[in-house]
């Protein structure tokens, strides 16, 4: 019993935060750069003997890092803005992923635009969809919102399924790869032989998203979301334009999902409605909850774990879904707030200190 309790109460997040707050600017920057470099070197890990246990059966490790790992992390971060930051349950997040992917496929095939030009378009379309869905539905709360968003996710998929112009159930093949990037260090090609470039592309998007969330969290929008999450009526009574900030949160989340869709389509070259089922929405939500709802690093960890594990245990074939499910149940039992939960101030018993001196 004691081990269970210490496991439950042990909070890596707080430990990490304590170490982090003890560091100066130089230490923080160098740690950040080291972590980014380490993340950037990940695709090479599958090639070396000491780290080749990371290799996944069937698919190439670097490919797994892009889809599902990178995509899941990116989408979890996006969904975390909606679910974790402002506390709205969105069960149709896959819709924005699909809109991004179809934007890439349609524009890539029918126009002369390349992936870099389509990326902002994909984000924009996903965000527009977010606003259009948000304005009428975000007046709803809790379960009602969850049901409406779930419906929206299905509507997008079924629309794609029944629109012959965009391939219907057959989907769209021959989506173009992104053009090469010329860097001072050499040419970065994007094709089926260069998964590393795609991985770095996803990594950049993930880092940008993390940066955006961290910026917003400490500013007015972050405070408004926090207030809305804790008590929406009270937030409104304090003069927070709740509907506006809910739509913002929903739209930003949608934009991140759209970006993920664009990358996905230009990497896999072929998309079909089957790739955008309700399952994906639930899996992404699981990543957020499993990792630690509301905490960026928890969500990243959740995304990595839930995307990587099913791939890694693919050798046990049919039993892998069972193992996956069991792992989820067991870990959620030990850590009901996720692996790295958000700061829990509700439970803090900090006595009145040092405030009198100020």
């Amino acid at each position: 019993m004691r081990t269970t309790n210490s496991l439950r109460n042990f909070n890596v997040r707080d430990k990490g935060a304590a170490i982090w707050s003890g560091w100066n600017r130089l230490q923080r920057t160098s740690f950040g750069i080291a972590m980014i470099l380490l993340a950037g070197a990940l695709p090479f890990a599958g090639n070396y003997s000491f780290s080749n246990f990371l290799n996944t059966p069937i698919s190439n490790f670097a490919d797994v890092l892009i889809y599902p790992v990178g995509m899941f992390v990116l989408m979890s971060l996006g969904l975390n803005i909606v679910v974790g930051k402002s506390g709205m349950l969105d069960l149709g997040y896959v819709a924005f992923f699909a809109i991004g992917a179809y934007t890439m496929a349609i524009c890539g095939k029918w126009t002369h635009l390349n992936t870099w030009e389509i990326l902002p378009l994909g984000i924009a379309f996903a965000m527009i969809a977010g606003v259009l869905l948000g304005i009428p539905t975000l007046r709803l709360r809790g379960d009602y919102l969850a049901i409406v968003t779930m419906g929206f996710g299905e509507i997008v998929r079924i629309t794609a399924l029944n629109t012959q112009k965009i391939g219907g159930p057959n989907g769209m093949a021959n989506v173009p790869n992104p053009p090469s990037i010329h860097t001072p260090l050499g040419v970065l090609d994007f094709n089926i032989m260069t998964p590393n470039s795609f991985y770095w592309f996803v990594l950049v998007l993930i880092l940008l998203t993390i940066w955006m969330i961290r910026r917003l969290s400490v500013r007015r929008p972050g405070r408004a979301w926090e207030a809305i999450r804790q008590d929406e009526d009270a937030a409104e009574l304090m003069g927070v334009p709740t509907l506006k900030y809910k739509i913002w949160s929903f739209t930003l989340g949608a934009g991140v999902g759209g970006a993920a869709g664009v990358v996905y389509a230009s990497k896999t070259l072929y998309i079909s409605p089957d790739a955008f089922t309700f399952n994906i929405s639930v899996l992404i939500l699981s990543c957020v909850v499993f990792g630690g709802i509301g905490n960026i690093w928890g969500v990243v960890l959740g995304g990595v774990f839930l995307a990587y594990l099913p791939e890694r245990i693919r050798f046990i074939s049919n039993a892998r879904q069972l193992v996956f499910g069991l792992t989820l149940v067991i870990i959620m039992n030990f850590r009901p707030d996720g692996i790295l939960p958000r700061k829990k101030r509700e439970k803090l018993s900090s006595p009145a200190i040092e405030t009198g001196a100020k």
Partner: protein
Amino acid sequence: MNLEIKDLRVFYGKIEAIKGISVTVNQGEIVTLIGANGAGKTTTLKTISGLRPVASGAIIFNGQDISKLPAHERVELGISQAPEGRGIFPGMTVLENLEIGKYFRKDRKIEMQEDLERVFHLFPRLKERLTQAGGTLSGGEQQMLAIGRALMARPQVLLLDEPSMGLAPMMIANIFNIITAINKELGTTILLVEQNAQQALQRAHRAYVLETGKVVKEAKASDLLNDPDVRAAYLGTGAH
């Protein structure tokens, strides 16, 4: 003339909760709405602050009909509410709760400090609890925080929804003393909803008695304290 509610009607679905209420609150007054459970007191306050939509009637504030404005814009005009059940943010510190109270004003640090000082002057206890999470405060402290937070917006009218709910008698007296002080020292007009009719009538200038969504009596608070019907119904002392 500060706040005037004219023939207000409010529905919950098909049920008419407020059946044409008219209430006037003048500059500098403490006005109280008393009545039993379900009389429509809280609904009236929620409708004034904008959490419930108006079916018909008008809410005139400083000559402007605000009945169609969203709640957060009414705060900007000068109507703040300390909601029923306090509605503080449990996961934010006392300081963060207070800061949210003036969310719409992007003031500089100095003005923030002034507002904070004003609240601490009324509620010295909050200053001691500044870094503590709102959810860990006692009931009385939470009520202080709810009122203090509403004051951060520098309201002209403060709406208080049952500030004595769930508090010990000592704390109730304390809270009502502070409400009187807010009215006297800051000159804030107060519309007070209370079940504790005794305290409310002692503190208020004027009072309205609500029964099932209608105003049944309107008088000076001191007169109602001696009104045999009110004594029998709300003060528990019986007619004599």
